[in-house]
């Protein structure tokens, strides 16, 4: 049984592309045949986050317009089995694709893969409509800020209006210290407002910037706590239900820093 999940948020810059890349890596590493699809036509970035930008020959629009076969456009990630990228076109715009064409494309991909993850562009226009057209369900990424939560609320309404099942929520860039000081909404605050089920919490971490610089998603790094957050999420997506919801945090202080250098990093769980 295969499934198409769209990763969306409404607001830009909250981490959709990073989330898509990391969930793709984590699902593939669980042995699931996974393709990540960049639906942000004209502003592609998923290739860069995955470090696959130099291997693009054909893209999604080429496939849809019949200029190449689907398999020719799929880029295999050599760092793990089971992971493929379908890049977006960079020199076209969102109107190059229709929702019907996306539905057909997703159906073709589902025949080949266990999971099809779609990286949805920001906004609620054509790109969003294309992205949700073939999806079986949606995951909404939110950061604990007023503007992001507001846009997430709007997107949840649109997802439900499109008759997809109730979406699930990822709380991204969570800062345990700010939450503790009462300067950031916690898990329960966000869930009280958005009222959809949580599927993961990702701590704000420098790992994400480093991994974007290198084109190596944190989910490849077994020592990264952000990577661990995505790996847990991937297990929840595959149906495991006994993974507790906790915020992960890097312990502070010189001793912990020393331990990290020595490869003895510990992952500490703090209450969300």
């Amino acid at each position, binding site marked *: 049984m295969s499934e198409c999940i769209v990763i969306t948020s409404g607001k830009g810059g909250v981490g959709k592309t990073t989330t898509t890349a990391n969930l793709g890596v984590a699902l593939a590493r669980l042995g699931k045949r996974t393709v990540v699809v960049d639906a942000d036509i004209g502003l592609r970035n998923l290739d860069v986050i995955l470090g696959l930008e130099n291997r693009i020959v054909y893209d999604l629009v080429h496939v849809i317009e019949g200029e190449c076969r689907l398999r020719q456009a799929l880029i295999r990630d050599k760092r793990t089995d089971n992971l493929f990228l379908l890049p977006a076109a960079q020199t076209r715009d969102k109107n190059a694709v229709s929702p019907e064409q996306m539905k057909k494309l997703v159906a073709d991909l589902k025949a080949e893969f266990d999971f099809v993850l779609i990286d949805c562009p920001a906004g609620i226009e054509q790109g969003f409509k294309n992205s949700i057209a073939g999806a079986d369900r949606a995951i909404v990424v939110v950061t*604990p*800020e*007023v503007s992001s*939560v*507001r846009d997430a*609320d*709007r997107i949840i*309404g649109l997802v439900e209006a499109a008759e997809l099942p109730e979406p699930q929520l990822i709380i991204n860039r969570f800062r345990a210290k700010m*939450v503790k*000081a*009462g*300067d*950031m*909404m*916690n898990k329960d*605050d966000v869930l*009280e*407002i958005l*009222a959809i089920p949580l599927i993961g919490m990702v701590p704000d971490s420098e790992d994400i910037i480093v991994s974007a610089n290198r084109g190596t998603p944190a989910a490849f790094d077994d020592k990264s706590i952000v990577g661990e957050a995505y790996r847990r999420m991937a297990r929840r997506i595959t149906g495991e239900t006994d993974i507790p919801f906790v915020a992960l945090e890097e312990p502070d202080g010189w001793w912990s820093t020393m331990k990290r250098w020595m490869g003895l990093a510990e992952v500490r769980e703090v209450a969300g």
Partner: protein
Amino acid sequence: MNNFFDRLFGNTRTGSKDDAKARLKVLLVHDQVDLTPSQLDAMRAEILEVIARYAEVDREKVDIRLERAHDQVRLTSSVPVRRVTSRGAVPA
């Protein structure tokens, strides 16, 4: 450490997350309702006007607002009444 200095210097600032949450709750209702703040004010005034025909209202303490509860927007009102007037008849 922060807490220590906060206490030392008598900093009693409460966390800004409560502001975020309170603002969001209002914002999301307004996003859904599609009424401008001035239209909402007008609605409040008209509701009060009707009530005032029948009862003497403590206008300072009136609280009429739209709230979101589950999937529904709800108009809630708290209108303290000083006394119900005896001339509470429907105007002809």
